């Protein structure tokens, strides 16, 4: 699989909330190769070339007609720049990069747990799961957010895919369960069943999901985020501590850009 670098045209900039944006880009060469869980490095720089380093974004959606979407919250200089992009603007992308989610080849029970912007790669995952040749027994999606406005659009998008159940939790109780998304799991997952769990979100949430799965011996894949300089395993800056099991068991550190961003939960040291 070969990643590429090139200029992509902004087709659409949707404001999900005041500070959450979804950019649709025309990037056929990346879209056709992209797998769920992979990411792109985006140059989010102003005329002065700042910020200097590209920013990693997971692929929110890739379509067969060459469109690619990223979903993000404006939290810094780079994302603020991206939030202002207009149709016709050109952005430089490198991708698709990294190891994505592994999809089950046998029919199984699937559980997807997303929190905040971590929901971004899970939409593409859900879509691919629904469109694969394997008909899964159940697909349950659990989404957590701070408040209703941050989750409404995504909740509808997931529900619109059909063939899955969506449950939400919000910190302020403005929609769905008032509390943590992980609190929804026990009541809504058949505990006697065997679930393939996929998760992406804030570190404490993924840690809770991972330990929930460890206790039940369920397979769990997590998509991690770190500060990253290159995204192509040249700088080795995106190290995380490994558990010493699974991939590269002899090395204390794993690299999110190359070994991940998707890891088996058991390969990560949850500290």
């Amino acid at each position: 699989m070969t990643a590429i670098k090139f200029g992509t045209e902004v087709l659409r900039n949707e404001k999900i909330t005041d500070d959450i944006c979804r950019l649709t880009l025309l990037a056929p060469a990346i879209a056709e190769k992209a797998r769920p869980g992979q990411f792109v490095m985006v140059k989010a720089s102003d005329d002065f070339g700042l910020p200097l380093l590209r920013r990693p974004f997971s692929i929110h959606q890739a379509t067969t007609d060459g469109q690619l979407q990223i979903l993000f919250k404006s939290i810094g200089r780079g994302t603020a720049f991206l939030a202002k992009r207009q149709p016709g603007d050109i952005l430089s992308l490198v991708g698709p990069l990294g190891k994505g989610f592994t999809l089950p080849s046998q029919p199984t029970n699937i559980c997807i747990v997303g929190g905040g912007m971590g929901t971004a790669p899970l939409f593409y995952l859900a879509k691919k799961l629904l469109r694969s040749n394997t008909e899964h027994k159940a697909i349950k999606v659990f989404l957590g957010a701070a408040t209703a406005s941050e989750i409404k659009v995504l909740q509808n998008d997931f529900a619109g895919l059909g063939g899955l159940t969506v449950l939400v939790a919000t910190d302020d109780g403005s929609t769905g369960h008032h509390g943590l998304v992980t609190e929804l799991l026990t009541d809504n997952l058949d505990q006697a069943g065997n679930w393939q769990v996929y998760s992406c979100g804030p570190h404490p949430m993924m840690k809770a999901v991972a330990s929930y799965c460890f206790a039940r011996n369920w397979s769990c894949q997590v998509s991690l985020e770190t500060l990253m300089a290159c995204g192509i395993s040249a700088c080795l800056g995106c190290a995380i501590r490994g558990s010493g099991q699974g991939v590269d068991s002899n090395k204390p550190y794993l690299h999110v850009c190359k070994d991940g961003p998707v890891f088996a939960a058991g390969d990560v040291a949850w500290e």
Partner: protein
Amino acid sequence: MGIDNSLKVDIGGGLQLKNPIMTASGTFGYGSEFADYLDLQRLGGIVVKGISLQPRPGNPPPRIVETSCGMLNAIGLENVGVENFSSAKMPFLRKIGTPVIVNILGDSIEEYSELAEKLNVIEGISAIEVNISCPNVKKGGVAFGTDPVMVKKVTESVKARTSLPVIIKLSPNVTDITATARAAEDGGADTISLINTLMGIAIDHRTRRPKLANIIGGLSGPAIKPVALRMVWQVANAVKIPVIGIGGIMSTEDALEFMVAGASAVQVGTANLVDPDTAERIIDGIGDFVEELGCQSIQEIVGTLRTD
């Protein structure tokens, strides 16, 4: 583009490059990481990630953070070790047809010389670049590169164990860069490269914690270019051996500025991480510049800074 003699440069120790653009150690992996983005064969030289005798795991995270116009890193010299480098990385590198320069690092003079000896017998290596910014474990952890006496000793012992050209990569974290440059020349270095990263700290004022787990990191990128240019100019005027300029080179113009300051060649570093095809773009740009100037060789501009 065929063989263009106008871009050839001599960087000392009998080593000639097809053009003056090299990639800096630690920013270009072991070469293969960039095969998708540029034609590795076009590069003047590839300096691989620093190699030690034994594999090193690197520092705890976070290892990198962006700072104003630059990047602070404390990767901790993570590398596969010389044996794995030879068996797993060299087969790819030697096929490219671009000079491979192996950057080495160690905790003691013995480690540097043992590495030099091992590399001497590995086929396909064009030169050794010595990273002397590492702490000297036997001397209380003070970096080799800050003491002219140690710089000379390291240079001599590496030279004694290899027939390959030896490039000494200077640390900028010194009061007088010409003192360590002269020490390297006195020790028999064929070439000097500079600058390595500048030591710095980034702080989160809310948590009151350093942004890097290692607390101190090395600053690179456009932020350090004026410092690097100054040091390259001073060193080029202080030694007779060729100088390789490094420090925040992002564009053709940046590369040419270093050559005017006295660098016979340059290394592109942090820019590789931002735009993996930067080095090839600069090679094109230098070619255009030579054509525009109508000169026979890019070497004509080396050390032509006018101070009158």
